[in-house]
């Protein structure tokens, strides 16, 4: 089975966001970048699927040169090949990104394409489904359970009040959610092996954005709250405040 996994480089979850001088993007000074946490589930799932069925995992990232660090990391986890689609400084919206990735993915002739549920910078959760639609593949987002047998993927996702299981013909796109697996950490052997693997460069297919970010702002600070008291003795004061002041009960 040929599995292609898309990964993005994002600010770590502990980043304090500052707005850059352009008023539209983040100030990157001091920001630590990591592999998007949901994409770790995607890489891990790809590795598990080929460990079961045989085959290869190819990881694709569209981004600046620096993303080769995250790609190297996925190779150390055990991915077989990596493709770096070089991005210029032009910001791309979700659909333009999907068009670039769709072209790169099609060239890998995959049976299964894995994405993270969402990139934790833009929090869109769209690129995977867009790529599937552009390529004419079936897709399911937010998957917490995946089984591939023959030419069919059986995948489950949690919706409001239920777990829904769907069957999809291969090749298909799956976006991965927490709960699907526990991503492995690269071991020393993997890190050494990754040094010998090459990251193939690729150029982005032309794709224009159909939306643009016009501003980025910090949300209003929450007003400082108050400690109503200590221990069980504070309960009546809390309920009174919730009822009469906050009108929350």
């Amino acid at each position, binding site marked *: 089975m040929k599995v292609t996994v898309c990964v993005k480089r994002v600010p770590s979850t502990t980043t304090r966001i500052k707005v850059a001088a352009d008023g539209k993007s983040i100030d990157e000074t001091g920001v630590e970048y990591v592999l998007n946490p949901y994409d770790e589930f995607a890489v891990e799932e790809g590795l598990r699927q080929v460990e079961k069925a045989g085959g290869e995992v190819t990881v694709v990232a569209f981004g600046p040169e620096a993303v080769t660090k995250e790609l190297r990391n996925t190779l150390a986890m055990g991915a077989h090949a990596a493709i770096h689609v070089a991005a210029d400084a032009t910001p791309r919206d979700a659909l333009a990104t999907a068009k670039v990735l769709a072209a790169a993915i099609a060239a890998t002739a995959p049976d299964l394409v894995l994405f993270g549920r969402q990139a934790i910078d833009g*929090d869109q959760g769209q690129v*995977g489904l867009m790529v599937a*639609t552009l390529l004419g593949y079936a897709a399911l987002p937010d998957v917490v359970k995946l089984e591939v047998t023959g030419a069919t993927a059986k995948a489950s996702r949690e919706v409001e009040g239920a777990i*829904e299981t769907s069957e999809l013909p291969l090749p298909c796109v799956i976006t991965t959610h927490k709960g699907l697996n526990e991503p492995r950490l690269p071991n020393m052997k993997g890190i050494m092996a990754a040094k010998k693997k090459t990251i193939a460069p690729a150029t982005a297919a032309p794709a224009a954005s*159909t939306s643009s970010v016009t501003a980025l702002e910090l949300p209003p600070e929450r007003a400082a*709250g108050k*400690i109503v008291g200590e221990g069980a003795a*504070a309960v009546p004061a809390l309920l009174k405040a919730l009822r009469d002041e*906050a009108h*929350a009960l």
Partner: protein
Amino acid sequence: MSCIIAIAEQSDGKLKKVAGEVASEALRLGKSANLPVVGLAIGPGAAAAAAQLGAFGVANAIALEGATLAPYSGEAYAAALAAVVKARGAKLVLLGATSFARDLLGRLGALLDSSPAADCVAISANGAAFTARRPVYAGKALQSVAFAASPALASLRPNVFAATPSAGTTTSVETLAPAAPPAKCGRLVERVATGGGRIELTEAECIVAGGRGLKTPETFAKLLEPLAAALGAAVGASRAVVDAGWRPHGEQVGQTGKTVAPKLYFAVGISGAIQHLAGMRTSKTIVAINKDKEAPIFKVADYGIVGDVEEVLPALTEAVKKLKSGG
């Protein structure tokens, strides 16, 4: 004639709560952009659900029903919706940011060649040009997005937009057959209800969330669940307790869990790590219960009690029960 389309999520002929919010926002924008609003419901029961849009003042609606729409298939649904949006020349398409939208919004974007904005908290119209505001970086910042393509596509975060009931509108519903699905389609084969009628986290008006301060899964269940039950609240959890296997993944609140914005959020024995705050900081009122008065959660809480969960929770549960029974 061009229009705004409000996709009304429904299940077996019953509108979802968010459909009212979407319809009301569509009408508000329709007024300022001078565009009529068309409701759009899809799947088994769509016609019955579409008729209920009158309760929010939507006079015209389309219902898509047909054999290709049951069982559910994201591919078939997206193709059918996109065909109607195209045929009507819609300038703006809105839907609720639920798991229904998570499966459809990106597909619609690709089919209609317009990059959508997901999970918006505000939409504004300047003539028929639309701008969306949406949280990014797990709510640590807010982004404004201008749409350059038509239709603009946006999903609206539930519980943020007001549903405005409007008496006396009768909706005229046109039932259409769905456009043909693409060659490769997934289909739903099984649906298992979770939690036996329990309140869904992202829809709940009140959430009681617990963390490692509850010590064991047994004390979590013994102390926290009764409080949630007394409040009619959903149960949430920090990642620490989900990772420890005390609680299911679906209950995790935070940057890599669910984003929630209830009217009332209790953080019990939760320290208030930045990743946890990311998922709940836009809750209307936040209450923290923690034995450490320096815990960061107190910085975002409106009200706090410094104390041990073993002592505070039983007392709080009893007091809430008394209050709810009219005491």
